[in-house]
């Protein structure tokens, strides 16, 4: 979707055009869903995604231009953080439980080779477990930067913080992920094994 089109769609949505908003949903729902999936696990990801778009529609009047994707992801990030906070207050529904229930790493892939596919799943499982050990704000930063590929400028909008804070969160998150993976070096699939 061309940016100019997106700006037009946003303007139409702000004036109450639901079809225009749904066109924006179609463009961004995959990103939003994947963020929720990585943050909350597959059990809660759908609800969080739907909540994100409902909240976004209600708050459209607050959007004053800029990067719509980052704005949307910021709403999703806040909803995920709220859900995690809520989950922490009820330990029965821990993140591990959610991840076990439906691992977001069970993502169909175009790789034809079953062995490659198994290795990829194995690595994905470790990465997801490593991500689950990070504090929420570091996990958000890592997911948005390294998986979704947002730029640092977009991250400042999506996370609602300064560039320095973004850099700091990414650096800390990556360092912890590195430590997590290095501690499990033997368990990692050979072809993804980190070099000594």
């Amino acid at each position, binding site marked *: 979707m061309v940016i100019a089109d997106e700006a037009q769609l946003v303007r139409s949505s702000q004036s109450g055009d*639901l079809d225009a908003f749904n066109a924006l949903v179609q463009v961004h729902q995959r*990103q939003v869903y994947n963020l929720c999936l990585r943050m909350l696990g597959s059990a809660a990801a759908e609800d969080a995604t739907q909540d994100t778009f409902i909240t976004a529609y209600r708050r459209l009047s607050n959007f004053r231009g800029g990067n719509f994707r980052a704005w949307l992801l910021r*709403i999703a990030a806040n909803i995920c953080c709220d859900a995690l906070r809520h989950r922490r207050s009820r330990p029965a529904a821990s993140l591990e439980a959610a991840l076990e229930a439906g691992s977001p790493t069970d993502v169909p892939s175009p790789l034809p080779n079953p062995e490659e596919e198994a290795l990829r799943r194995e690595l994905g499982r470790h990465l997801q477990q490593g991500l689950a050990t990070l504090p929420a704000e570091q996990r958000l930063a890592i997911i948005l930067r390294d998986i979704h590929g947002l730029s*640092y400028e977009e991250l400042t909008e999506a996370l609602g913080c300064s560039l320095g804070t973004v850099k700091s969160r990414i650096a800390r998150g990556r360092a912890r992920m590195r430590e997590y993976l290095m501690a499990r070096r033997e368990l990692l699939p050979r072809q993804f094994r980190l*070099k000594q």
Partner: protein
Amino acid sequence: MLKVFLQFRHRRFRRDLSAYLDGVLPQRARRRLDAHLDSCQACHQELTELRSTVEALGSLPMAEVPRSFALSAAPIAEVRPRPTARRLEFGLRLATATAAFALTLVLIGDFAGLPGAGEKEEMRGGLLSAAQETPAAMEAAPAAPDIKSIQPEEPLFGQYGPSGDVSPPETPAAETEAPPVETPAAEGMAAADETPAAMEAPPGETPPAEETPPAIGAAPVETPAADETPAEPEAASVETPAANETPVATAAAPVETPEPYGTTETYQEEPTVGAGVSEEQPPEEKMTEGAGGEEQTEAYASYDQAAAEEEGGGLSREEAVRWLEIGLGAGVGVLAVVWALARLQRSIGSRP
């Protein structure tokens, strides 16, 4: 020493590795890190591992959506509190904090400036001026209708005021529990006179009744009444038309609390204070653009500050105000209890 310095440098370089990978490190820092990487095997190794980690994360596939999340019907628009309501809320909270602060000052003053029985006589001259000054403040009160309701104290002031009849025993209006009650009343006034001077205005010449924190900005209006200790009635009339007279009245009101009415009065006044203050409160609360009411817009400029924020957690202004309120509330509560106990003890002790 050199070793410590090198370790510090090494730690700094390690922290920069992530930004280096993404190519967002400033040119100079990048050159320095390049030079360091040539000589430091550990950092080089870490950079390699970090790069592999990032690549592994990047290899994670994006899942397909299980269904379309398009909205079938427009959700009901969110009902946000009107700006005035938000301003009122903020004003009320600020007013609570202000009232608590003022009461704290009065109580502290009551402790610090307790005059003995002998000083009472000597204080008459001062009391006269204090009594004249206080009605001046009281006259400003009609601007705030609620404060009017707590004016039963006026007869008490009247005795001291214009008549100049200061004989302590004749206080039937202020009959509360025991004969020595008069002393607390006089002390209360003395305290009211002294508190601000002791607490806020060491130079002594500055207005004695400026408990109102600078945030309210009522102090300038207070000045004429307070400065002129002779306190001609004009002082009051000068005050009344002033734009922010309500804070003047409220500032004067807590001063009266040490009188026989006790501390509860102050709490009754709070809504009035709130109404007065909230109207003047500028719309400071800026709603952040994105989602979530609790979003904080951190304004940390540097990387180091950001790191510090990561450690400690940012504190928004709302939170700061809340904690200020809690702190002041707790302080006032403790002081009120101690004050009441001391008073009880004194009244028991002075009983024949």
